[in-house]
């Protein structure tokens, strides 16, 4: 019980201290995860919408794959990215292993299927409603895709949040490809794992609480933006 109480004290102290090391860790966590989510959106939105919209051979298999990859184990993705980026790997020459870029790549791979799979479902539902009108207009495929993604934007923000939740919370992938190097690739989750293994349970838990607060802040700001926008566009 005292550990938990200490943890809250630690969390408060961490937040109040504005300790440079601590802020760097928080900053890197946000930078890596937000960038990964952005990349995943750029790929996942059009990919999911295209699967929803177009009939092609193997469409069922693609959907099954996207849905399955929503549950990709982070350590496995980390390992694969590690192999690809390691010195002897196909992209070893880039020298990206143990850099934030490697962490972004790994997290983008984890998040893209989540965003694509949820986008497929959301866009497919909207397409059912819009198809008569858009087909009557003889809209080109790209215009149709754009219309559906734009008009589904508020529902899609939930997909983005799901992706962000996945990225900010995972430890397996960033640990393997980032290496948890102090002042270089240490993020919140790897720091928590480290403190836990060192036996600093209160510090670890304190970091955990800060992580939760961060996730809450990001989610809340998306929800507020959403609520304002949704009222304007009356998506109900």
């Amino acid at each position: 019980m005292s550990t938990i109480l200490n943890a809250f004290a630690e969390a408060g102290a961490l937040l109040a201290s504005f300790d440079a090391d601590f802020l760097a860790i928080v900053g890197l966590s946000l930078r890596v995860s937000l960038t990964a989510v952005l990349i995943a959106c750029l790929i996942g939105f059009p990919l999911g919408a295209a699967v929803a919209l177009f009939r092609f051979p193997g469409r069922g298999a693609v959907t099954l794959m996207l849905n399955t990859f929503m549950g990709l184990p982070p350590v496995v993705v980390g390992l694969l990215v590690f192999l690809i980026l390691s010195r002897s790997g196909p992209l070893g020459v880039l020298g990206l292993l143990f850099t934030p870029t490697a962490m972004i790549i790994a997290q983008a791979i984890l998040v893209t299927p989540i965003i694509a799979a949820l986008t497929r479902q959301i866009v497919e539902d909207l397409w059912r409603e819009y198809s008569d009108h858009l087909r009557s207009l003889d809209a080109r495929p790209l215009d149709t895709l754009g219309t559906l993604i734009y008009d589904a934007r508020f529902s899609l923000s939930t997909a983005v949040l799901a992706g962000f939740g996945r990225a900010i919370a995972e430890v397996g992938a960033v640990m393997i490809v980032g290496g948890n190097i102090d002042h270089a690739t240490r993020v919140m989750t790897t720091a928590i794992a480290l403190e836990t293994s060192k036996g600093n349970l209160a510090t670890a838990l304190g970091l955990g609480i800060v992580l939760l607060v961060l996730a809450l802040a990001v989610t809340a700001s998306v929800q507020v933006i959403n609520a304002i926008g949704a009222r304007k566009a009356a998506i109900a």
Partner: protein
Amino acid sequence: MSAPQTILPLEVRQLVFEANSTRLLHDINLSLTAGQRTVILGPNGAGKSLLLRLCHGLLRPTSGDINWRGTGTRDRAIRHQAMVFQRPVMLRRTAHANITHTLKIRGVARTERRERADAALALAGLSGLADLPARLMSGGEQQRLALARAWVTEPEVLFLDEPTASLDPAATRAVETLIEGFHAAGTKIIMATHDLGQARRLADEVVFLNKGRLVEFSNAERFFEGPETEDGRAFITGDLLW
């Protein structure tokens, strides 16, 4: 208003449509020319909507031909047509943006869109609601917006699928006035309805369908004065058909 008449007449030859191996339209033969307001009349389930959707190109026939003049395929013809549905599809945008979206899809330059959308909204009596989200508008306003959206495409043919089926009399009148506006501007009207009063008000010619068959196709006056078939008589005297 539209470009020189290019796609009429519409020739429908031995049109058959089946779904789940049930035949829903049987051997429809029809020739529709410019100028006449065509009303497709019949009870629910007669195949009115199906016929409209097939002609517009939203559905593919099981067999038979739908030919627009000068075009072998639906693909070029559909760009000269517009369709308004019973339940209008409203994009999750403002009334104004619903129209500019259509203009954008049709390749109208950005600078022109605003002005043309404003004009169409004014025509539909919706200027005051331009910035209202379309989905917050009433049923009648939504249908007028759908017509304004069709108007900006300057269609040669306008398909209407029971456009007033869920509207009150005042809203119905507003919609019918707009339809008359299309007619006056030279757009061919092809409208499905089961509302006899509306058919009497708007039709120049009547296509009477029952159970997926074309029962009568004649001048509106002749149809309402004395239908040639038993089914036609039963329908206009208000007997239930099934």
